């Protein structure tokens, strides 16, 4: 199963329509989480919202993820080692308040397991060419670095409080 998700905050009908058009040509069925969108998919099973526990189960089960550029889905995909195709929301099409998703995908482009599509043609070519699961990431040096920085800061704050 291919998992399509648009997150919970805002609709993303342009994206759902494109994937719905592509769905009949794919090797696997698509399950779509469409949020507040008005468009009702014809070629995919869908649900408006999925609770976090069920959503994580679907992430674990799917072969890959096609998603808006939301951080929550990216964290889950990394945890479960699932390849992703990201399709950023565009502010000019009133799909988000600003273009931070565009900036985010540009910054994340080239990371293992992440591919990016900017339009229907791009999405069509990526979705027809599934990728293997990305390698497991046990340690991310920059993640460890921030955790250490925050932990050290908290210790310093505690000493400061006890000292004062």
């Amino acid at each position, binding site marked *: 199963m291919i998992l399509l998700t648009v997150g919970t905050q805002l609709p993303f009908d342009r994206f759902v329509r494109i994937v719905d058009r592509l769905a009949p040509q794919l090797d696997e069925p698509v399950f779509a989480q469409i949020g507040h969108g008005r468009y009702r998919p014809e070629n995919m099973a869908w649900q408006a919202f999925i609770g976090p*526990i069920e959503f994580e189960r679907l992430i674990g089960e799917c072969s890959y993820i096609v998603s808006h550029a939301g951080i929550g889905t990216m964290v889950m995909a990394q945890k479960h080692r699932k390849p992703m195709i990201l399709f950023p929301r565009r502010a000019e099409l009133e799909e988000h308040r600003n273009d931070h998703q565009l*900036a985010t995908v540009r910054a994340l482009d080239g990371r293992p397991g992440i591919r990016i599509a900017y339009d229907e043609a791009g999405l069509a070519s990526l979705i027809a060419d599934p990728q293997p699961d990305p390698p497991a990431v046990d340690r991310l*040096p920059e993640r460890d670095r921030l955790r250490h920085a925050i932990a050290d800061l908290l210790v310093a704050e505690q000493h400061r409080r006890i000292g004062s």
Partner: protein
Amino acid sequence: MLAVSSGGGHWEELMLLRPALAAFDPEFASTNSELAQRDGVARFHLLPDANRDGPRQALRCFLASIRLVRRLRPDMVVTTGALPGLFCLITARLLGARTIWIDSIANSDQPSLSGQCARPFANHWFTQWQHLAGPRRRYDGALL
């Protein structure tokens, strides 16, 4: 310690930070209690959801944040945003707590609006992008 965020990506980032907070036995607050259930967070407080497109919801969330912080009286507040984190951070700082804002990794072109509002009230303010680092805008790693 109070560790707070809205649901979705902000909560996932807070959970990635959780090992750094563990020694301080934090209470958590967010807008979806099923997230706490999924991640085995026992000491959890529910806040109403809010974003800047819904002023009434935002006001409800602000009032609930004030009540929560006054009840818990945390010495420290750590948040990954967005609005519920901002509300708790401001209230806690005004009540004398020390505060840490970690701007979401989603904000790679400029700091988030709620993050900018948090700056005067945050004792420590982190960005997760090196190119956004600056005076009182610290970069020291990233969660993703």
